[in-house]
C-alpha cells in the first residue's frame, strides 16, 4: 500500500489538475457564448446572399458561360477535401471525428478511382494528415481557431479554392467540419461547395414573373460572377464559425467531465488516505500496548 506521503502528493496533484480543468471549462464557456453570438450575427448576410443567388441563378438559367463555381468543371475526377479543425487539443473527440470522416471519404473516393487533394485548416488536421496523406496536401491554414475569426480568413480560403477551380486543378470541393448542434453535440458533416448545390425552391415560393421583373446592373452574368466567389467565402465563414463554437462546446464538455472525474478520484484517494492513517495509528497503539504489557 502506498505510504501516506505518496498519497498526500497524489491528492495534491489531482487537486491542481482539477483547478486547471475547471478554469479551462469556464474559459471555454465564455468563448462559446462569444462564438455563438458571432455565428448568430453572420446569419443574415448568408440568408440575404442565398436569396439573391436564387433570383440570379433563375435569371441566367439556360445561358452559356455560367461560372465554374456554379456549374463545376463538368468532370468528377479530382476532389478537394477541406477538413476544418481546431489548433489545440483537449476538446474530446471533436477533432478526431472530423479526421475519421475525412479518412473515410478519402478511402471511398480513392476506391472509386478518383484523385483526392487535401487542404487542412487548423493545426490538428495538418499534423494528422501530414502523417499518412502528406502527398495529398496542397495547402494549409493554421492559427485560426481560438480567437475572433476575421472574415479575411474565409475570403483568403475562398480565393484559394476559386483559383484551383478556375485553373481546372480540382473538379469538386467539399468541406468536412463539425456542425454545431449544442455544447454537448457536434455532428461531423461533409458539405459540398463546388459545384454549388442550389436548394430546390418550391414553385410556390417565388412566382415565376417576380424573377423576370428584376433589373440587373451591370448585367446578370457580371453580378453572378462576383456573387459566387463571395458566396463560397460566406459558406466557408459560416463553417469556420460553427467550428469555433463547436470547439469551445466540446472543450467545455470534456473539461466538465475531467473536473468531475478529478473530484471522484480525490474522494476515493482521500478515503484510502484516511483509512491508511487510521491503520497506522492502530498499529502504533498495538505496538505501544504490547510493549507495555511485555515489561
Amino acid at each position, binding site marked *: 500500500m502506498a505510504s501516506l506521503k505518496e498519497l498526500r502528493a497524489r491528492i495534491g496533484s489531482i487537486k491542481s489538475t482539477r483547478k486547471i480543468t475547471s478554469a479551462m471549462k469556464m474559459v471555454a464557456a465564455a468563448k462559446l457564448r462569444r462564438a455563438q453570438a458571432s455565428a448568430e450575427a453572420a446569419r443574415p*448576410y448568408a440568408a440575404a446572399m442565398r436569396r*439573391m443567388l436564387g*433570383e440570379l441563378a433563375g435569371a441566367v438559367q439556360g445561358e452559356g458561360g455560367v461560372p465554374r463555381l456554379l456549374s463545376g468543371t463538368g468532370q468528377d475526377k479530382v476532389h478537394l477535401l477541406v477538413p476544418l479543425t481546431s489548433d489545440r487539443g483537449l476538446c474530446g473527440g471533436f477533432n478526431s471525428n472530423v479526421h475519421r470522416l475525412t479518412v473515410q471519404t478519402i478511402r471511398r473516393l480513392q476506391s472509386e478511382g478518383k484523385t483526392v487533394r487535401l487542404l487542412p485548416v487548423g493545426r490538428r488536421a495538418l499534423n494528422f494528415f501530414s502523417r499518412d496523406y502528406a502527398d495529398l496536401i496542397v495547402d494549409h491554414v493554421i492559427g485560426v481557431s481560438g480567437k475572433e475569426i476575421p*472574415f479575411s480568413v474565409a475570403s483568403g480560403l475562398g480565393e484559394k479554392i476559386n483559383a484551383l477551380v478556375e485553373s481546372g486543378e480540382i473538379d469538386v470541393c467539399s468541406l468536412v467540419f463539425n456542425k454545431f448542434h449544442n455544447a454537448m453535440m457536434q455532428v461531423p458533416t461533409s458539405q459540398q461547395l463546388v459545384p454549388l448545390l442550389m436548394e430546390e425552391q418550391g414553385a410556390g415560393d417565388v412566382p415565376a414573373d417576380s424573377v423576370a421583373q*428584376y433589373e*440587373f*446592373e451591370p448585367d446578370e452574368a457580371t453580378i453572378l460572377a462576383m456573387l459566387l466567389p463571395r458566396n463560397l*467565402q460566406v459558406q466557408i465563414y459560416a463553417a469556420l464559425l460553427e467550428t469555433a463554437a463547436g470547439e469551445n462546446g466540446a472543450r467545455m464538455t470534456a473539461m466538465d467531465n475531467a473536473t468531475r472525474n478529478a473530484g471522484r478520484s480525490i474522494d476515493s484517494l482521500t478515503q484510502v488516505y484516511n483509512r491508511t492513517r487510521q491503520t497506522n495509528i492502530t498499529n502504533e497503539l498495538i505496538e505501544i500496548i504490547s510493549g507495555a504489557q511485555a515489561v
Partner: protein
Amino acid sequence: MPVLIEIISPEKVLVSREVDMAVLPGMEGDIAAMPEHAPMMLLLRGGVVALHEGDVVTDRFFVAGGFADITATRCTVLADKAVPVSEISIDNATAQLEALSEIWDKTDKTDMTRLSALQDQILAVRAEIAAGAGTV
C-alpha cells in the same frame, strides 16, 4: 411610405430601419432606393451609402463594394466591408492604400483580371479616405 434599409456585412447587421430614401454607390453611378422602386439588383463600388429622412441625411455608411437588392419596400445592401463614416480611420486606410499600390507595382501588367480587381480595391480605399476626410 418608407423603405426598409438593411446594411449587412459578413460579420453583422449594421443597420435595419425604415428611411425615406437611401442613396447607394452603384458600379455605374449612384442609385437612390425609394419606395415603389422597380426590383433591381446592382453591384456596388466603394463609396458612401447615405440614409435620408425627409430632406436630411441622417446617417452615412462607407461600404467597400458589394451588392444591393432593391425592391418596392426593401433595400438590402450586402457590403464586403461596412463602417459608419464617423468611425473611418484615415491612417489605416492610407496604410492600406500604400500596401495596395505596392502590390499594383509588382503585378504583371498583362494580367487584366487581376489588374481590374486591384483597381477596384484601390478606388474603394481612395473613396474611404475621401469619405473619412469629409470631402464627399
